[in-house]
């Protein structure tokens, strides 16, 4: 069995009912240095018309405006670009800074108004339950055995057991568990001699192998395998992570702090993907104020993450995928809020993304319009852009399509021929 087969088995363990036993050391892989996938979720359902799919009011006295800003005030970047944005929140600063790197998808039909369903549809491509998030899929495909292959801070983070989720509370606690062999970190006093510590771990690995050999129930078999994989030698990686972590208190945004941990874990070679999440978008009341606050948190946070990636010199290794539950109604309710609307937008930026583009279109009342599948231009009788199209493109770009995992969790083979991320 060559190395490739080993890695494939490591990736499959826990999926296949009868995956062979995988000694921890066999599955220990060198540090991951592929693309870091950051999946950002604007929780609650953002309003694309206040952001990257602007719809202004034709005049100040329109009786039922879709937005309170005017159509004439819609912004475009200083350079040539199809990207437009709403004169809202901190959009100007954000888009002027990033528009060359951003690929926008507008007019996406999520087919739902449900908070339980929207994130799932956006981030897995499937409306119904049962599919792992893209972030989980790519983490399992690339490095299932890494101790922090998939970090989650919320959003749609269902894994279906193909990879473990890691959630971090107090990052200071990581510094202690990064050195579990030491009784005193200060004086570097170990609990056991290094030889004994290794003997204990070796005995445990052999013990797990014996337990697994006797276990026939698939779920318990997976449970043991998962424990085996979690025990890949990881303390050194965790120590490296703590060394890469910046002072989180010096960061200004929630996303910035979440991103800092993911970047540090990636630099330590143990992270493939991370869900970053920021809330406040479910603006049923007082929409303009609340949505603007939420959008500021989002755009400032993304910029703070991006700054860190650039400062670390790894911006060309980081891909960000940004989405939300769904959109918001084209107009205000009696509480000056906006309710749920099934048409939304997404955007991507970073590694492998050809920016300064817009794919998809919606009309003035924020209804999705059909596209020619090849040219992606507006076309009567074409197709409506849906999450499955974007997820298929993501799977293609990440090299997941055709993998055993992708076959285990297939999504509809609906593609827009012209839809390429890179």
């Amino acid at each position: 069995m060559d190395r490739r087969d080993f890695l494939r088995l490591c990736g499959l363990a826990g999926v296949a009912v009868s995956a062979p036993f995988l000694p921890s050391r066999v599955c220990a892989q060198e540090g991951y240095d592929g693309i870091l996938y950051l999946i950002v979720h604007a929780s609650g359902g953002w309003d694309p018309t206040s952001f990257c799919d602007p719809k202004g009011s034709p005049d100040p006295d329109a009786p039922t405006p879709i937005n309170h800003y005017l159509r004439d005030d819609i912004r475009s970047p200083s350079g040539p670009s199809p990207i437009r944005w709403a004169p809202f929140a901190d959009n100007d600063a954000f888009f002027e800074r990033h528009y060359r790197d951003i690929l926008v998808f507008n007019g996406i039909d999520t087919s739902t108004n449900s908070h339980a369903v929207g994130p799932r549809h956006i981030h897995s491509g499937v409306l119904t339950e049962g599919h792992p998030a893209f972030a989980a899929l790519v983490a399992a495909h690339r490095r299932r055995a890494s101790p922090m292959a998939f970090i989650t801070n919320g959003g749609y983070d269902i894994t279906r057991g193909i990879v473990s989720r890691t959630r971090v509370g107090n990052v200071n606690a990581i510094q202690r568990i990064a050195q579990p062999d030491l009784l005193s970190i200060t004086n570097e006093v170990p609990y056991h001699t290094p030889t004994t510590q290794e003997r204990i771990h070796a005995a445990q690995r052999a013990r797990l192998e014996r337990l697994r050999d006797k276990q026939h129930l698939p779920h318990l078999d997976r449970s043991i395998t998962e424990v085996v994989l979690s025990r890949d030698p990881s303390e050194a990686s965790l120590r490296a992570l703590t060394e890469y972590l910046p002072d989180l208190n010096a960061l200004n945004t929630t996303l910035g702090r979440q991103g800092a941990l993911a970047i540090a874990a990636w630099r330590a070679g143990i992270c493939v993907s991370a869900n970053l999440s920021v809330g406040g978008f479910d603006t049923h009341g007082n929409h303009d104020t609340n949505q603007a606050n939420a959008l500021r948190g989002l755009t400032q946070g993304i910029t703070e993450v991006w700054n860190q990636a650039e400062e670390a010199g790894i911006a060309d290794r980081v891909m960000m995928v940004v989405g939300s539950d769904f959109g918001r109604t084209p107009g205000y309710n009696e509480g000056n809020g906006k309710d749920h609307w099934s048409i939304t937008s997404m955007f991507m930026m970073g590694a492998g993304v050809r920016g300064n583009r817009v794919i998809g279109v919606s009309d003035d009342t924020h209804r999705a319009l059909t596209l020619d599948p090849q040219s992606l231009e507006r076309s009567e009788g074409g197709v409506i852009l849906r999450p499955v199209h974007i997820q298929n493109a993501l799977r293609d770009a990440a090299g997941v399509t055709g993998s055993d995992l992708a076959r285990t969790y297939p999504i509809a083979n609906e593609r827009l021929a012209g839809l390429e991320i890179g």
Partner: protein
Amino acid sequence: MSTSNRPRRREPRYAIRGAGWLAAAAACAALAACGDPQSTAEPGEPDTAGTPDVGVPDATTEDTAHDDADADAGAEPDAVVPDASPEACVSNTDYFLEEVWTPVLSQTCFRCHNPLGAASQSGMVFQPSGYHGFIEHNLRVFSETAAFERDGVSMVLLKPTAQVDHGGGLQIEPDSDAYRAIESMLARIDDPVTCPEVDESDDAFFDGVVLLDPDQTLRKASLNLVGRLPTMEERALAAGNGFQGVEAALDRALQEEAFVTRMVEIWGDVILTDKYLGRTRASDLLDRTYYPNARWYYDEEYDSTGLDARFVALGGAYTNNALAREPLMLVRHILRNNLPFTELLTADYIMLNPFSAYAYGIYDATWENPLDPDEFQPLQVEGIPHAGLLTSPMFLNRFPTTATNRNRHRAAKTLLFFLATDILDLGQRPIDPTSTVHNPTLNDSQCAGCHAVMDPVAGAFQNWESNGSYVPPNSWHENMRPPGFGAEEISVDERLQSLQWLARRLTADERFAVAMVHIVYEGMTGRAPLKLPAANADSDRASAAVRAFEAQQNFFDRAAREFRENNYDIRILVKAIARSPWFRAVNTLDAPDPQRAAELDQLGMGTRLTPEQLNRKILAVTGLPWRGNSTSNDYLLDINQYRILYGGLDYDDVVERLDGTNGMMFAVQDLMANDMSCRVTAYDLAFAPEQRLLFPHVEVSFTPRDANDFDVPQAQAAIRKNIQHLHERILGEELTLNDPEVDATFNLFMDTWIEGRDGIAAGELSTSLSSQCCGRVEYWTNVPFPDERQVNSDPLYTVRAWQAVMTYLLLDYRFVVEE
């Protein structure tokens, strides 16, 4: 921590083979190396000594292993295997689910014949799986439609084959498998097949599945439900009376406060109101218009003249958290008083302590101790029509509403928690954003399916504002369905008590008991109830998953019925789950073929213990908690330590427990195993042998070889016997002395001891023990052990060899995961 939860050390019960046949333990010459073992701020890091807990462990109850060294069991659980049953009877319902609904109707007809679909106005509207009992409903609808015939052929055959006008055209080919399945179903409707009810242990689904035996079940249930190992008396009950004995033992155990705490923990995960613990998070929620004293303890302008100064001084510490825990204190009240669990919704009172009562403006209640923050009692706030959790301000705030949401969020949670009905499941069907129907929640079939169920319940919350205040409105929204439950409207006379009205209907509904089964099952097992496979799952996997779903539904229905018939006694439900194969399955006799493996795919727990469970197990098994010192927070429960890293909740942003084990969690386990082995090994050895929990069969002087490197058979036998004991106590494994697992652990001990012995001889290793790893004082009292019993050094390297064994076992799969 309550001292009552500590594992109790044993009375002397049996003789230990004489300790005089080897040289006495070396004197504790390195006493200076051993500091105060009470203190470590970080695991393994010294800190200042804490104030000792005043509790003294009882020395009364046996709680440990069989003394039978030759018990013939082996590493694999000595398990029960259900007898293979004769060919299974397939009822009409089961046939419909397996052969008609899942492979045929759900894939074809349901696309339109659903409450949101194009055929929602037809006479055949199926319900999705989010509704508990949807199979029975759909079979009934199918049967009613099947009764319509033309020329002797049923419409359920004519329509999908397009032999008569059908809006969906041809869906099923005549002479196809699907067609024949429907034909067979029609024959069954004419001549129904009913099957005798079977006990789940006889259910063919579990053929060949290895289940825990009574003793093992008792251990698992005791750790799970009351956080301790079973006592010898309880084990004797199980040994002598099988599962009747297990139930008898549990009957007693489930009366303990630890069980109440466990159930409160399970419900805390559901209603998430612990979000409001701390600071003024809960009292801030109470509207000062109606509760002007809500923050009396925090309000600088509040005039506390005339109040007991001690009461005022304690108010800051005790008011907010009492307000926050009020809904969970209702769970505790029900359990402590053995009330029917319907009280959860029908309680016409609110649970308050002296401090929170004051915040609610209740000044005249009588208290046993008005300064006791743990004294909660049921009280009524004037003018409030209490309805248990439904009217709890904490519950209402945790699941808030807005002007446009109109209590629908609350309604959806009510349906989910108390009727096992996931209204959002309907949202899995696509909606059409181009619809222009006026008032779509009422008139658009895409929306009306959900809202017909949800909106009447939402209307029942009409008197409760977004902040949980009771403020009946003048009228309810006319463009919504009227307040009620199902088709029944709340009469005008009862509008002011709308949630009491709703509570009576919810608890009278059969789905209430099923909902309780779901919650307790998930809490006990860490596994969500199974769902039917998605329509796009491949047929082999789907049919296997259907069978598993069906088996579990049958169990849930039986458990729910038993729960109802026993006056909604939650303990009855807990015992039903504990004795079920869903709790006890640990293996199969032989490796199953792929189809059978697919059926059994979700069977067995294999659940990593939650931080709370692992925390309790550490204490139960080793006798010591994992914390810095006797008064500090437990590491696994502390949100600033490992609670979140280890998959726990903060009840605010983090509201879903992580399943599985990741590398960070292993690092926590690794640290815990190293740290606890350091803390408990010398400590346990410092007790008299008959009082030890971990090392009753050995002394520090027991070396496996003598000074001339010859084996010492008696010592080796004692070491093996103690290893056997440790496997039983820590992992629940009953092994023979020559079991390969005992060999493996013995080899670990031996190799470590040899390494240490040689290292000391070569001057490379010290004879000292690190201060945290000594046995100098009793943990809870801080009273020093007698000098002759203190273990402060390790010149023979036996303590550290046992430490290695302890680390090995505390790190074990069977310690950190519940099989």
